[in-house]
């Protein structure tokens, strides 16, 4: 496991300290704050809302279990929660690769400045967007969701994914280009 030092968030740490002492209000506040991003993260990957619901509740129940066992994190709660969420998704689906990934050399050059590809992507509807995402490999989905979706920092994303920052940089590069390829497949045209 690669340990990355993330900057502490004072309010989060205070809340976390209380939660570690089994303070119910603190625990519920954590739940209220973090359920949305955790749910999004899971939901975008699993595509089934009731499954996503179950997995999401698992994450917070695990948090409470960790408090009971004295193993809840002291810092970087968000990262901890995302890591648990990843685990839950993997447990359910396994780390299955779905769409062949691109290598660094295969990034697609843009055709012109007035870019039809860009226009196409902007015109995608929600369902197409979701469908395209789910065709990525698990890791690629995660990096896209965390970096572009949640706008988390490179360091925090690396911490959650258990990778070095350099590896995450490459991963996100590959992921966006794979996504572009997916979107160029037949069947992804605008309806």
């Amino acid at each position, binding site marked *: 496991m690669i340990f990355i030092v993330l900057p502490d968030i004072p309010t989060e740490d205070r809340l976390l300290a209380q939660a570690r002492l089994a303070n119910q209000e603190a625990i519920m506040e954590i739940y209220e704050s973090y359920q949305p991003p955790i749910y999004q993260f899971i939901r975008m990957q699993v595509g089934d809302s009731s499954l996503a619901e179950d997995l999401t509740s698992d994450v917070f*129940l695990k948090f409470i279990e960790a408090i009971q066992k004295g193993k809840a994190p002291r810092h970087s709660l968000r990262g901890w929660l995302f890591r648990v969420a990843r685990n839950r998704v993997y447990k359910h689906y396994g780390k299955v690769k779905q769409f062949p990934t691109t290598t660094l050399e295969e990034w697609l050059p843009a055709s012109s400045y007035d870019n039809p590809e860009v226009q196409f992507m902007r015109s995608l509807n929600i369902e197409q967007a979701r469908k395209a995402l789910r065709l990525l490999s698990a890791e690629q989905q995660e990096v896209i969701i965390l970096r572009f979706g949640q706008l988390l920092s490179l360091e925090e994303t690396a911490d959650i994914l258990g990778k070095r920052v350099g590896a995450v940089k490459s991963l996100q590069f590959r992921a966006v280009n794979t996504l572009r390829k997916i979107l160029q497949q037949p069947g992804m045209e605008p309806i």
Partner: protein
Amino acid sequence: MVERDLVDALNDCIDRLAAGQTVNDCLRAYPQLADELHPMLEAGLIAQRARYGTGEVDVVRSRIRPQIELAAHNLQAPRRSQPQFRIMTALAAVIALVVVGVGILAESSLPGDMLYGVKLTTENARLFITNNALQETFAGRRMDEIRQLLALNREAQVQFQGKLTVITEMVWRVSDLEVVVPAGTVGATSVELGDWIAVEAFTTADGELVATHIQFIQDLETAIPQPTMTVVPPDVTNTPQPTSTPAPTITVTPVFTPTATDTVVLPAPTITPSPTAVCTPSIPQGWIPYVVQSNDTLASLAAILGSSAEQLMAANCITDPDNLEVGSVIYGPAYATGEDNTGTQIESTPNTIPQSESSGSGGGTVDNASDDDNSSDTEDNNESEDQGESDDDEESDDDESDGGYDDNSGSEASSPD
């Protein structure tokens, strides 16, 4: 290298987006790479397009919330985390050092000196620590011997020690053993619930244990300062006085006879006439047992059992009709309503002390002597510290209700182990 530049630029652009900048801001920052960056960024941004609506998110949050609340509610005080534990143990060490330090200072003190009381206390405490394990074994053995005597209806003089857990008008419970303590018993008024006491008593041919002397030994909860979460505030009035123990050999077990200095003397199996200080219950033929429930009164029992209050009192030797002990057995002619005695229907021998069938010597109380929930209280204290697990729930509850009444009801069968 172009690709490397692109990888880095992409990353930087994502950071800019996270910081609130737009795609165009990023493209302006990297004009030569803009053509390549643009579709990459748009591709990544479909993650934002794919987001699920707050409606769905909120609904799910409400649906899950009860489970989370329940789990949070069921959280017990969690295990101590490492640094806190270390601080606590350090504190405990400091306290222990101070105690020992004062004790050392007091070492050379004499009766009348200011620190003499400290000397005795520390000696008692030290002996208590070292002897505690031993003492509990010896005490346990004495109890077993007494139970055997009672079972055999053998009369003997006995001595034992134990923790005083129940005091009623006539009967006390000392570490699981029931002792009849008649009014006027020496020392009976100077001890309280929770005390570790020594009892001098005798067993009767009717299987009763009757006290003659009571002596306070030690207040268990204040023996050693304990940095635990179930600390009972020390009772200042219970520090042993210098006069209660002989000076040269301080023992935790008090001396009853001039010769005994160590632990409790073995009961001598001699036959001595049993004083009839107590009423012997005489249950008429055909009367059946009934286990007292928590809201029973003598009057209601009389109705249920189809007798008069006076008859019940006389036959069962009920001296304090207002304090019927829950779980104790009262005999009566019949159940007037024909209803079952809930859950604890007992055949003719409810007591663990074997009696001859249906004869009148049933005694007023049931001793469910099989449980250890009283004698292992100090152990339970420690267990609930080290484990936050759910099966300690019951034990820590016992500790909390400890200084007070121990519920003697038949549901003790449910206690763990």
